[in-house]
């Protein structure tokens, strides 16, 4: 399958997910078997995106400050995210921590 076809299939599928209840299924309530798992899509998917990205270094799990400064920088950013609201502060803190660690290391 060509790359463009794949993107179009994802695009159409995403539109249909957005359209689902608004356009077709109307105001019938969502069945509980569907509603309950959807509540956990955000934490599960976001963690599945974040954890490998900050723990893996050259394809291997590494959480030592010298081997993988990204993990330590992510911890700093996580504390900021927990204490403060807003995305900008988290990105600034995390990038700042990474640059400092890279400059030292």
């Amino acid at each position, binding site marked *: *399958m060509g*790359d*463009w*076809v*794949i*993107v*179009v*299939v*994802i*695009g159409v*599928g*995403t*539109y249909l*997910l*957005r*359209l*689902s*209840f*608004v*356009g077709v*299924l109307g*105001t019938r*309530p*969502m069945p509980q078997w*569907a509603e*309950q*798992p*959807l*509540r*956990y*899509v*955000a*934490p*599960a*998917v*976001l*963690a*599945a*995106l*974040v*954890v*490998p*990205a*900050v723990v*893996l270094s050259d*394809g291997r*799990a590494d959480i030592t400050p010298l081997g993988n400064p*990204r993990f330590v920088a*992510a911890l700093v*950013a*996580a504390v900021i*995210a927990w204490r403060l609201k*807003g*995305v*900008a502060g*988290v*990105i600034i803190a*995390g*990038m700042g921590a990474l*640059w400092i660690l890279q400059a030292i290391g």
Partner: protein
Amino acid sequence: MFDGMRSVAPLLVGVIPFGLIFGVTAAGSAVGGGLGYATSLIIFGGAAQLAAVQLFTEGAAAAVIIATALVINARHLMYSAALAPHFREFPRVWRLGLPYILTDQVFAVTIIKYETERDPVYRRWFYVGGGMALWIIWQITTATGVVLGASIPESWSLDFAIPLMFLALLVPALRNRPSILAAVVGGVMALVAHDVAYNLGLMIGAVAGISAGVLGERVGRRG
């Protein structure tokens, strides 16, 4: 309409760097700038776009790329269900067009606004204002990122801003014990499965995390 724009404005602080970085990442990957930017028009969902670009680069199978992106976007089902009773009073053309510009941010501001605003005309223009503001910013920033592409030095490690942004969204999503469980299991499983065949790591993490959340909720209710 301007009310809608004003309501999403603070949320753009996160969207602008994300869009730029997505564009830079896509342009520097095997996907290339053209198709990379096209995902902004065709898919219009940052996390799914990013996962798709990552999987394309790793040479994943078509079915895996499609399934992973659609699992990430499954949350829109929930938004659609919540908006449906309010959108019912809109003309049909609006009901078909409005879902295209649905995003996490617009859903969040709209559903709160609709608690107090009853006028259907105000309601749809509020949504259009928020939705279009985000859509335009996303198109501009991702396209700019594609153009900047290679001119940003790798030593800046700008790609690290993407997991940071997801982290910033993840922490407030940890509202109760089942959602913390969903995140822990999702993250650990994605890590363990990162080099599993067919690039299914992200899918495995997502499905395992969602299942853990559901189970956790059931156990918690019984106990």
